[in-house]
C-alpha cells in the first residue's frame, strides 16, 4: 500500500508537470483577454455609473473601487476567453484532472498504509495542502474560467511536491501519542484547507503586483486586469481567514488538552499568530484609504511568507513543543 502510494505520488507530479506545460501553451497561444474585457463597457456609461454610486454611498465615497468580489461561492466571470478550449487547454484540463485523481488516491492509500489519517508529518501535510490547492484551482476554474491561473498554480505545486517527495519524505508509520487526538485532526484539516487557499491567494497577489508593474507585459497582458486579480485575492483570503482563525483556535484547544495551556508563545504558535495578524492587516488595509491595492497586496504576500516560515522554517530549524516527536 505504501509503495503504491509512492508510485502514484510520482505519477501525480508528472501529470501536473505535463498539465503545467499545456496550460502555459494555452496561455501563450491565446489572444489577450484583457482587451476584450475593456471593450465590453463603453467609457461614458462607466463614468456615469461611478458618479451615481458615489452620491449614494455618501460623502466618504467608500465605494470608489468597483463593486468588489466575494467569497468563492458567488464569483463573477472575470475572464473572457479569447477562443474556447483549444487543444492545449483540453490536454491541460484532462491531465490536471487525472493528476488530481491520482493525487487523491496517493493520499488515501497513504492513509491505509499508515492505518491513520494521512496528515501526520510534513511530507503528508505538504501532499494534502498541494492537493487542496489544486482543488481550489479546479473550483475557481469551474466557476469562472480561471484557466490562465493554471500554469501559475501548477508550477509552485510541482516544485512543492518535488520538495515534499525528496527532502521531507518519511516512511508511513503510526503517530506519536501527543499527535493522536481528535482536536488535532480538526486543527490540521482546517490549517491545511486555509493554507491551500492562502497559497492560491499568495500567487494571485504576486500576479497582481507583477501586473501593476508591467500591465502590458507579454505574458501578463493575457491575464485578467489588475482589479480583477485584486478582487479574486480578497475573495480567497476572506474565505480562508475564518478557517485559519478556526484552525488557530482548534490548535489552542488541542494545546490546552495536551499541555494545559491554550497559548504559550511557542515558536509555532507565535508564527500562527503573526500570520493571522498580517492577514487581518491585509483585510483592514482594504478598508483603509491609501492602503488599498498595492500595499494591501504586499500584506497578502507577507502573510503567506509568514505561513511558509511557520511550516517549514519553524518545524525544521526552531525547536519548540511542536517539534518534539513525543511528549516533551
Amino acid at each position, binding site marked *: 500500500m505504501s509503495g503504491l502510494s509512492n508510485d502514484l505520488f510520482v505519477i501525480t507530479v508528472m501529470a501536473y508537470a505535463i498539465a503545467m506545460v499545456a496550460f502555459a501553451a494555452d496561455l501563450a497561444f491565446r489572444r489577450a483577454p484583457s482587451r476584450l474585457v475593456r471593450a465590453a463597457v463603453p467609457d461614458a*456609461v462607466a463614468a*456615469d*455609473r461611478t*458618479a*451615481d*454610486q458615489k*452620491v*449614494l*454611498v*455618501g*460623502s466618504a465615497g*467608500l465605494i470608489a473601487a468597483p*463593486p*468588489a*468580489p*466575494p*467569497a468563492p461561492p*458567488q464569483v*463573477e466571470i472575470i475572464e473572457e476567453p479569447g477562443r474556447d478550449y483549444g487543444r492545449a487547454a483540453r490536454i491541460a484540463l484532462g491531465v490536471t484532472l487525472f493528476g488530481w485523481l491520482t493525487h487523491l488516491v496517493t493520499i488515501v492509500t497513504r492513509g491505509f498504509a499508515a492505518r491513520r489519517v494521512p496528515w501526520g508529518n510534513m511530507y503528508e501535510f505538504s501532499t494534502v495542502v498541494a492537493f487542496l490547492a489544486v482543488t481550489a484551482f479546479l473550483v475557481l476554474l469551474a466557476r469562472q474560467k480561471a484557466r490562465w491561473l493554471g500554469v501559475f498554480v501548477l508550477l509552485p505545486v510541482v516544485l512543492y511536491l518535488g520538495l515534499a517527495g525528496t527532502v521531507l519524505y518519511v516512511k508511513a*508509520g*503510526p503517530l506519536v*501519542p501527543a499527535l*493522536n*487526538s481528535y482536536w488535532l485532526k480538526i486543527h490540521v484539516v482546517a490549517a491545511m484547507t486555509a493554507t491551500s487557499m492562502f497559497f492560491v491567494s499568495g500567487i494571485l497577489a504576486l500576479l497582481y503586483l507583477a501586473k501593476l508593474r508591467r500591465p502590458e507585459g507579454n505574458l501578463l497582458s493575457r491575464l485578467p486586469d489588475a482589479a480583477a486579480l485584486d478582487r479574486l485575492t480578497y475573495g480567497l483570503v*476572506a474565505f480562508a*481567514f*475564518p478557517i485559519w*482563525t478556526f484552525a488557530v*483556535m482548534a490548535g*489552542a484547544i488541542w494545546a*490546552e*488538552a*495536551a*499541555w*494545559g*495551556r*491554550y*497559548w*504559550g*508563545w511557542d*515558536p509555532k504558535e*507565535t508564527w500562527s*499568530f*503573526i500570520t493571522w*495578524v*498580517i492577514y487581518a*492587516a491585509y483585510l*483592514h488595509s482594504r*478598508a*483603509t*484609504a*491609501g*492602503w488599498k491595492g498595492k500595499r494591501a497586496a504586499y500584506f497578502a504576500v507577507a502573510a503567506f511568507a509568514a505561513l511558509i516560515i511557520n511550516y517549514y522554517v519553524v518545524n525544521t530549524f*526552531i525547536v*519548540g513543543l511542536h517539534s*518534539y*516527536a*513525543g*511528549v*516533551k
Partner: protein
Amino acid sequence: MSVTRPETRPEEPTLLSTVPQDPSERPTPGGRRRPFAPLIRAWRQLTSMRTALLLLFLLALAAVPGSLLPQRSVDPTLVDQYIVDHPKLGPFLDRLSGFDVFAAPWFAAIYALLFVSLIGCLIPRMRLHARALLRRPPKAPAHPSRLASGTTFETSASVDEVLAVGRGVLRGRRFRVAADPGSLSAEKGYLRETGNLLFHVSLVVLLAGIAVGGLYGYTGKVVVTDGDGFTNTLVQYDNFNRGALVKTDRLNPFSFQLQNFEAEYQKDGTPKTYRAFVALRAKPGGPTSQHTIKVNDPLKIGEAKVYLINHGYSPHVVLRDRTGKAVYDAYMPCVAADTRNLTSSCVFKIPDTGLAPVGDLKKVQQIGVRAVLAPTFDPADTRGSIFPALLNPRLAGVQIYLGDLGIDAGTPQNVYELDTTRMTLLKVKGPTGASTPILDPRNKQADSVTGLPGGLVLTVDKVKNYAVFSIKYDPGKGLVLWAAIAMLTGLIGSLLIRRRRVWIRASAGPGQGRTVVEIGGLARTGSLTAEFEDLVRRVTARLPEQG
C-alpha cells in the same frame, strides 16, 4: 445630470459600513479655539483604521524575536545557555527583554495601544450601527438603472402595481423596504456590520479573559516517582509561576499518589501510550478515587487540571557505611538527554554522608555523583540506550566526587547539575574493578561501587519510572473560549454576508398606459450580479408584458 441626493446629514452619512473616516478628512469640532482640539485630534488618529493597521503590523513584527530567541516562559534553561554562549549579546538582549518578549514593556505597549484604539473605535461604530438599524434605507436615486447593477424596462402595469409587486418580491427576499412616491428603497445584510462589531467586541473580551487568567492563574511542574505523592502546596512544586493576585497559601487543596506509570512503545521505539495511574484525594481527609492521566487527557479537579507532560527514570540510590547501615536512601530522577531512547544523565547529591569534616577549615565531605542511565543497554553499542523501555538498565560512566556541593552557600542551584569546583574526583572501584564503573541494578553482584572513603558503599539497586506533571489553574479559560466562539461567529458574518441596497423607481412612460421601471442595486463588497438578476426575474415574472 439630475440626481436626487439621498438624505446626507453630515453626522449620519448613508454609509454601508461604520468604518471610521480618515482623521485628516474629518473636521475637528471648534477648530483652533478649543483647548482640547489637539487631544481630540490625537484620539482620532489613534482610533483610525490606519493606526490600527500600523499597530497590527507592529504587533506581528514584535512577535518575531519571540520565536527566534529562546524564551524564559518556554524554557528557562535554554535562555541561560544562550547567555553563557553569547557573553556580549546575551546580557544586552536580556536588558531589552529579548528573552521575555511576550512580557516585555514594548510588547505590552503595542497591544495596549491596539486595545485602546480598538475600544475607542468600537464605541462610535456601535452607535452608528445602532442608528443605521433604526433608520430606513436611503431614498432612491433618480436613475437606479445606472448603478453598478441596474436595469430598466417598460410594462403595461401601473406605477402602483409595479411598486406593490416590487415590495412583495423584496419583502419575500427578506429586504427591509421603505416606500416613497414612485419609488422603493430596500436594504439587506445588516448582519455584516453586526458580525464585524461582534468580532471586535469579542476580541476585547478575549483579551480580558487572558488578563483574568494571567492575574488569578498559576502553573507549576512536579516530578513524581512511582509510589510517591504530591500535595498541592507551594513547597512541593519544582517550578511554580503565578499571577499577581494568586494567594499561594490558598491553592486548591488536593493531593494524589502516583501508583504506577506505564509507557508502551512500538517495536522501533516510538512511543505508543503513556499512562499514569493515580489515587486522588480531592480534599484533605476526603475519600480517594482512582484515575488515569494520559498525554492529552488531564485529570480535572475543580478548576485545576493535572497534565502528564513528561516521564523518565529514577534510580534508587543507597549509600551505606562500613557497618552496612544506610546513611542515604532515595530515588533520584535522571533527565533524558536523548528523547528517543531515553539515555538519561543523572546527578545524585548526597549532602549528608556521615563523614566527619576534615582539616582546619572543617571542610565538609559531601558526595556528588554523575552517571548516565541507559534503560536498555547493549554492550555492542556503547553510545547509549538502544530502546526507551526499561529492558536492560545500566548506570554507566559513574563518577563520584567528594567535597563541598555548594548547597549550603544559599545560592539556588539546579538539582540536575553538579558544580564540582570544590570537589575532587575519587578513584573508585566498580564491580569489575573499572574506575568508571558500569552498574547493573538488577544484578546483586554488580550494583555497587566500593573504594570510597570511610568504607562507604554506593549501591543502585532499583530503577523506577517517574512522571512529570504540570498543574494548571486558569480561571479565565472559559471566558476566552466563549469569546473565541463569538469572534469566529462574528467573523464569518462579517466576511461572508454582503450589505446591499436595491431601489425600484417607476414612472409613467412616454407611451399610452406604459410605465417605465428602473431597478438598481449596490453592494459594498462582493458582486450583486446573481442576486440582482434573480430579483429582477422575480419582479418581471409578476408583471404583464414588458418590453
